[in-house]
């Protein structure tokens, strides 16, 4: 006995209407493959280039009442960004990270579209000029890539260094933004 789409949709709507959902998530297509996106009640809480197992991850962090439903606002802004018509995101965020991470990500958010900055410079701006390595770790564990633009942080010599979604994606994002010329 399988569930009709109508029955399924009715249940999901009722669940949301009753405010029973801790996290909503969806998987959307992007120029770089599938993106896992998730929002808690407070805001966007996760973006991942590797959707597999992310539902369990957000359940661990935000609560087990996880439901897959479209996140139209998030999807639209990301589509606009990939299409080159949006430079800044206008989404409430739910960042639950340690204080140092929060400070670094806050500074990261100020790196403008189309520009790059270095790990060392970011470290200096949070008052820890010798903590470039630690900043690298924060970038590595950024729960909201693309929206918090860790792709704009490069090594002191301009090398791309690393990126969770893969270096080719980092390069493509910088080219999209005009921070880097297509090779």
């Amino acid at each position, binding site marked *: *006995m399988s569930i009709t789409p109508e*029955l399924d949709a009715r249940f999901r709507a009722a669940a949301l209407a*009753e405010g029973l959902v801790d996290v909503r998530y969806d998987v959307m297509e992007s120029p770089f493959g599938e993106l896992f996106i998730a929002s808690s009640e407070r805001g966007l809480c996760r973006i991942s280039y590797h959707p597999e197992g992310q*539902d*369990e991850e957000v359940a661990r962090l935000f609560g087990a009442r*996880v439901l897959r439903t479209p996140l139209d606002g998030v999807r639209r802004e990301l589509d606009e960004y990939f299409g080159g018509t949006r430079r800044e995101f206008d989404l409430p965020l739910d960042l639950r990270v340690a204080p140092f991470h929060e400070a670094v990500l806050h500074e990261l958010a100020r790196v403008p579209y189309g520009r790059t900055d270095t790990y060392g410079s970011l470290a200096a701006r949070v008052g820890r000029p010798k903590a470039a390595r630690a900043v690298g770790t924060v970038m590595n564990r950024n729960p909201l890539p693309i929206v918090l633009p860790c792709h704009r942080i490069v090594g002191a010599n301009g090398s791309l260094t690393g990126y969770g979604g893969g270096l080719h994606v980092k390069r493509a994002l910088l080219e999209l933004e005009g921070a880097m010329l297509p090779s």
Partner: protein
Amino acid sequence: MMEAVAIPPFERFYGEHASEVLGYLRRLLGQRAEDAWQETFLRALRAYDRLEHGRHLRAWVFTIATRVAMDELRASSKLLLVEDVDGEPLEVGRPVYAEIEHLTGELPPKERAAVVLRYGYDLPYDEIGAALGSSEEAARAAASSGVRRLRRRLSAPASGRAGFARASVCDADQKRSQ
């Protein structure tokens, strides 16, 4: 020390059990299954963040579904629900469930639920008892009572009335079929 089983994200739990719970409720309620199904999963979702571990989630959701169904059946029945429990529990050989499954709709609600849960969904008697709000013994008795009733029904003459001589409870659905 028992290893803690993580609670799966609700979406996964829903994906695993939504279909079979609907099938179960259709057997108990017929056309009224869809509302009961939605109520079942909303109740599960409401309680989901209070679960302590992820073990026995299938039995848990079937328990909820059974209670929702019982509420529905009691609300719609015209007669008093009388528990029909026989003397000593019989050692009942497993019937070929598929052959008699279509007849379970004619059983009183508690027996119907016990038979379906036992032979259709393989739940152990202590969990069936929990689902019915009664003891393991009562669950066992309800299931064997239901099976005996079904067997009499199968061996009864075409009119099919004899097997229900002692039935003291029925709901709107059964009244229609008699």
